[in-house]
């Protein structure tokens, strides 16, 4: 299992692994928004939490179809399905690897990029906390979507359409937590809801995704 995690991390950081892809996309979005919206600090400060959360969500979506599609193409997924480790833990580990290569770097980069969007001082802490606790849900929900479309050629479009509605609760509570934090209001309730979504996704979706993969491998 650790071997699988290390392999996925190693593949992501080697040439063509797509490690920097999400991060670069996140950077582009947050750099371009101030040019598009205009330089007034008040407007930017108001939309900053939402923009940062939407940016992180889309950046995480960008590399989702790599989770299983590449392994399916080269036959590794067949072999993993017949290996002595359960497919559920294969899914959980691969989603974790996806989070470590997209969600975690996005979380670490967000405070720096928030400066560009004039995020108010108290918001930095809540933005980072909400992303750190919310992005794992994005990876696990995404792994489920990727598992549903694993056998399809160019399944990325269908997967995005399947996954986006499932992302909405995470986005609402995550952005709300960051927004209330930035406005110096109590942000505990949306944070708890966000954590609940993440824990639920981590606990349940590997089983659903493994079932979907079994059907798709037939």
């Amino acid at each position, binding site marked *: 299992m650790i071997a699988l995690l290390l392999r996925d991390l190693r*593949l992501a950081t080697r040439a063509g692994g797509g490690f920097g892809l999400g991060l670069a996309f996140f950077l582009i979005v947050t750099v371009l928004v101030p040019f598009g919206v205009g330089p007034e600090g008040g407007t930017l400060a108001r939309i900053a939490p939402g923009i940062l959360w939407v940016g992180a969500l889309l950046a995480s979506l960008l590399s989702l179809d790599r989770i299983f599609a590449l392994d399916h193409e*080269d036959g*590794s997924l*067949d*072999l993993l*399905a017949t290996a*002595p480790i359960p497919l559920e833990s294969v899914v959980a580990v691969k989603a974790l690897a996806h989070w470590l290569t997209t969600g975690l770097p996005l979380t670490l980069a967000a405070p720096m990029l928030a400066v560009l969007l004039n995020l108010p001082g108290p918001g930095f802490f809540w933005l980072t906390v909400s992303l750190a606790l919310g992005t794992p849900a994005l990876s696990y929900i995404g792994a489920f979507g990727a598992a549903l479309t694993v056998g399809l050629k160019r399944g990325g479009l269908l997967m995005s359409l399947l996954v986006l509605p499932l992302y909405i609760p995470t986005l609402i509570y995550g952005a709300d937590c960051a927004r209330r934090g930035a406005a110096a209001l109590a942000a505990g309730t949306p944070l708890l809801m966000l954590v609940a979504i993440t824990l639920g996704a981590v606990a349940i979706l590997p089983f659903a995704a493994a079932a979907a993969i079994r059907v798709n491998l*037939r």
Partner: protein
Amino acid sequence: MMLELVDISVARGGVPVLEGVTLTLGAGRALIIRGPNGAGKTTMLRTIAGLQPPVSGRIVLPPEGAAYAAHADGLKATLTVAENLRFWADIFGAGDIGPALAAMALAPLRDRMAQNLSAGQKRRLGLARLLVAQRRLWLLDEPTVSLDAASVALFLQVLSGHLQQGGAALIATHISLGLREAEEIDLGAFRATAPRAGAFDGAFA
């Protein structure tokens, strides 16, 4: 006994391809599966490997007994030969990968990226995975594709070693392997009868 199939039927994409396949395979034996393209050789091997359920019938196989080698070798282009094999050894709980590399003559290539291997070398690496998988029954789908004569001889040597240690193998292939321990089975005899023309309308009649 390594494997017993009792009257199994298999389907591919909802179309039945084989029915009534019954066979047993004992330790130290190999069974060569013959049949024209599309006869259902791969579908049968995937069914035995547990990747798809049989339509009917029973498969008796010790749990975690089979290692499957498909057309695709499951290699990652940006990992080296040793890293690829090390990964599968870790997944299957094997120790040293040195003997497997040596057996398939891959030791000189161990630090080469898999993307820089020739097709035959990739296949050899895919077959080396069987040695680290430590399963007694090997399900091999055209194992000799893109191998040269010397590599086929190397593979036969490895396979004979496996059979002598009490392993077994089910091999779908078109070439003659010349294995003493091998019997042959032709899947043509088990071809599923095509659905009657107009059978679709039966439900509406």
